[in-house]
């Protein structure tokens, strides 16, 4: 038997006029998964969510919830709720009535309804604010009402479209933590949209990186960060150095890549000798040592930037390329200035360098 997913999307496409908002997306969301959609503005994240919620109908492809096709079902007949970006609380209803709205439509009887609303408000720590109107609440409180209103229905899947974007940094961190622990406790799948790469990496079971309507890469946070498939993913999440070269040789799990004046080892295969490739390496994976013949590459420190906990070095390779290196400030920063201009050698673990596709 096929595994049943909370959400399954099969070859979903959506166009608005000439704009392809979502292009042939297939994605399965496992039961109780916290999945994050990450990507630049206009890449189709909201459109994807709106199709799952039922506000947009795909031009082609299928959407299944809990194994049942819902592609054309209206929103009020799907077991999915949404936390909207601007919360969309009903201004004429108080907090209690906002949270009770969905339960009333489901015909939950009064005493059970009261209990469930109270439970939901307690969960988001809003007890005592039942009779306030949305415009009498702070941004963070409104955000919690929106969350309670959506969660009180115990949906299979909760959709969150940049729910934290309007909050200040401190509140944001706190809500990140609360959202994550709520999701674990309730056992509901969360599909979470964000622009914030750090948020995506810290909160998610899996991250979906989107670009221009396409899924660029889907994977656990470590995979997305450590083993990006494309230059786009590497560049979108964190800092990266991209080195161009050609394959010298390739064996089971190690390839040797020839760059302008040296040869570097890279984990990974599936390439043939002579093929032009690009190699990605994160700045913090590179070790600097004094100039000797031990390192993989040789260069000269061009500049230094003090970042507090770390120092960012720009190193000019002997071959003429500029690499970024991030080094924790374990020693005192006194020596920093004197190092600029020095010759250094660079090295890294073979599995830190990643072969990029395409």
């Amino acid at each position, binding site marked *: 038997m096929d595994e049943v997913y909370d959400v399954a999307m099969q070859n979903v496409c959506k166009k608005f006029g000439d704009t392809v908002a979502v292009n042939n997306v297939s994605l399965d969301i496992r039961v109780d998964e916290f999945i994050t959609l990450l990507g630049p503005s206009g890449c189709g994240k909201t459109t994807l969510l709106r199709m799952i*919620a*039922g*506000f947009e109908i795909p031009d082609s492809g299928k959407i299944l919830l809990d194994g049942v096709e819902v592609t054309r079902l*209206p*929103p*009020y007949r799907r077991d*999915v*709720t*949404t936390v*909207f970006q*601007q919360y*969309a*609380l*009903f*201004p*004429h209803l108080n907090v209690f009535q906002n949270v009770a*709205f*969905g339960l009333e*439509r*489901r015909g939950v009887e009064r005493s059970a309804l009261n209990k469930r609303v109270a439970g939901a408000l307690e969960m988001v720590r809003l007890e005592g604010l039942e009779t306030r109107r949305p415009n009498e609440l702070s941004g963070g409180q409104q955000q919690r009402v929106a969350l309670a*209103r*959506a969660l009180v*229905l115990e949906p299979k899947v909760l959709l969150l479209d940049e729910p934290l974007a309007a909050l200040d940094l401190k509140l944001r961190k706190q809500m990140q933590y609360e959202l994550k622990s709520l999701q674990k406790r309730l056992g509901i799948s969360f599909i979470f949209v964000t622009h914030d790469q750090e948020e995506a990496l810290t909160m998610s079971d899996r991250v979906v990186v989107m670009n221009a309507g396409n899924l660029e890469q889907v994977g656990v946070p470590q995979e997305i960060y450590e083993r990006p498939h494309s230059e786009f993913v590497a560049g979108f999440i964190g800092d990266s150095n991209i080195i161009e070269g050609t394959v010298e040789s390739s064996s089971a799990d190690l390839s040797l890549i020839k760059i302008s004046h040296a040869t570097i080892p890279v984990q990974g295969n599936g390439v043939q000798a002579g093929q032009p490739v690009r190699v990605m390496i994160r700045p913090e994976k590179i070790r600097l040592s004094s100039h000797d013949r031990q390192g993989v590459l040789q260069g000269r420190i061009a500049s230094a930037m003090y970042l507090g906990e770390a120092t960012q070095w720009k190193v000019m390779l002997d071959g003429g390329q500029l690499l970024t290196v991030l080094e924790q400030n374990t020693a005192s920063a006194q020596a920093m200035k004197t190092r600029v201009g020095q010759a250094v050698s660079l090295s890294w673990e073979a599995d830190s360098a990643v072969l990029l596709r395409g």
Partner: protein
Amino acid sequence: MKEPQKNRAKTANWLVAPGLFWLLFFIVAPLVIVVIVSFATRGAYGKTLYDFTWSNYARALDALYLSAYWRTIWIALLTTTLCVVVSFPVAYYIALRAPERWKRILLVLTVIPFWTSFLIRTYAWMLLLRSEGVINSALLHSGLIHEPLPLLYNDFAILVGQVYGELPFMILPIYVALERLNTRLLEAAQDLGANRFWTFVKITLPLSRPGLLAGIVLVFIPSLGAFITPDLLGGAKSIMIGNLIQNQFAQLNQPFGSALSLLLTLAVLLLLVIAFRAGLKASELA
């Protein structure tokens, strides 16, 4: 630092002076005159005699006139109800359904009738509704009827004329309220399990209440004072308060006409107070 501000405030005071004068001269002064005249009596040849008497007010309560009051209220109520029923879907369509580039055209179309005088438009309705009028001729020709329908000179004709004339005053405020409605809220309601009907009842309707209330006030109150439509389209018996007042002034019974006007004004004020209590905002009427 303080002085210039004070001076500016003084200048501002002077700037409102003409407006204030206008208000005093054209609204308060006539009102005062009407109040004074309403306590006078009518002398020979329509001369007004300024002796203080309540008799005009006593006469206003005469059973003779009660039927006109009831008819007025009834027709105003019907006009308002019909306007709401017709306007809501129209406003809803323009605000929430019509393609963006059509909106402005549709809005202009709703106010185009204002470019012609109401009197002339009412005459046009007479041409349409007469026994030999456009509608009856068409129906007779098509063979659907064999006798002309009595469309003119009755309460039906008054209603048609009134609803037609007041419709824009209902459509526009409802449109404004719906246009301001955040459509995300409608999606949120559906997301929480409300179908289209419940979304309308629980979200759209309550959030358009200010516009609805404004429309009701803007239609009901002028309908109470209507006199052109009942005069031209109504029958001999279809008299409304507006005609009653008009007749008194035409017959040179200014004191009684003034008393009736004042009573109508008081009734309208009372209604406005009720409407404001119900949550009407002055800004909605603008």
